[in-house]
């Protein structure tokens, strides 16, 4: 299939790529850029495992065609933080044991990031709404909610 030139910024790094039109942003991140932190769950926008920040808002990267990401600013879980320099959201997930198999965690943390950017002091109800696009089959969500509450405190203390 004919390839299309796209330029995009991922985790503040600019990229120029040649991609077929029938792959998704998720494929670009995982296969072309080897940023495998972002996961593919359902591939239909229902599980949220592929959640990234796309032009400042959370989005399912499995539903964005690669050419639609031309010119976009993307932040993935790798851009949030790493082992040496963890983001307060990542710290809180570890501290609260909000991770079991870990497959939903990157998407869950990206949704938490979007939520806390928009609403630094969410209620439990607002946290539930904020992660309503992310499925977790292990934890039963309670520890994730606790982790987001803790992350919100950490972020507020920092400022």
């Amino acid at each position: 299939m004919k390839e299309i030139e796209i330029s995009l910024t991922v985790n503040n790094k600019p990229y120029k790529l040649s991609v077929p039109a029938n792959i998704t942003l998720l494929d670009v991140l995982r296969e072309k850029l080897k940023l495998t932190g972002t996961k593919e769950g359902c591939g239909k926008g229902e599980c949220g495992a592929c959640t990234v920040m796309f032009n400042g808002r959370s989005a399912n990267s499995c539903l964005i065609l690669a050419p639609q990401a031309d010119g976009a600013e993307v932040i993935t879980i790798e851009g949030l933080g790493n082992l040496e320099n963890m983001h307060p959201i990542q710290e809180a997930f570890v501290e609260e044991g909000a991770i079991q198999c870990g497959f939903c965690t990157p998407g869950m943390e990206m949704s938490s990031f979007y939520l806390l950017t928009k609403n630094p002091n969410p209620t439990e109800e607002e946290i539930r709404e904020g992660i309503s696009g992310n499925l977790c089959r292990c934890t039963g969500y309670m520890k994730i909610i606790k982790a987001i509450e803790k992350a919100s405190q950490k972020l507020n203390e920092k400022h």
Partner: protein
Amino acid sequence: MKEFNYLRADTLSEALEMLEEFQGNVKVLAAGTDLVVRLKGDMVKEENILDISRIKELKGIFTENGIIHILPLTTHTEILEYPDMKTAAQILYDACKSVGSPQIRNRGTLGGNVANASPAGDTIPALFVQEAKLKLKSKSGERVISVEDFFTGPGRTVLKPDELLVDIYFPAMSDDEVGFFKKLGQRNALAISVVSVAAKLKKSTEPNKFDKAFVAFGSVAPTVIRGNRVENALMDSVVDSREKIRYIAQLAWREVSPISDVRASLKYRQDMSINLLYEGLLELYKNGWNRRS
């Protein structure tokens, strides 16, 4: 994913040009929250995909002489964040809130939800009762139709191959108008509606009476439908008791013609159409037919 020829229009005139050129063998791509799923499932027959998502002329919200215009590439989140939308278009606001998930609302557009023409499209019953009009444009001209006249069946509309939906507009709600949008899904987030009901009532000067009533149902017929019997009953009665509301809501049974599918049985959809309408009307009645604060 199936192979296709990707086309991108950066302006409205480019898009209309390409629609004319590819006459029908082209599928319009807005955000893709639905279309990309269908491309992956090989459910799109067109060979050309026309990406309109960058057309600035088709994005934004503005009010002009009491009419709210929501341009088709405006996302559900942008509608929810727009100042005053909660009062000026409370029914559509509530419908947008019930769409998908935060991620889907951040990407999915109002125009996409309308043009997709799903009988379960959440914003459509709301647009019916908000008396929305749609502007359709092609290279050779433009026309305005009522949202009710747009749909001809599941996924089917009166849109001609060279036409594009370019504006969605409706009057801002006045102080004497109240309404609701209610949706029943199998769960709260990311659930396609089993039944949805939207209603708008224009209060009369006499208590418990209405000069105008608009009621629409989603997911209970091949397209979203108006409930004329229910509307007439609301306008003909003094709606001053729980019993009268129950009686009026039961008329919904005769309006709807649902099917049984994976989400619900025919009978359940019929019963839930009545119950959702009853619940919505009762909440307003208990609040003295005033808007909830």
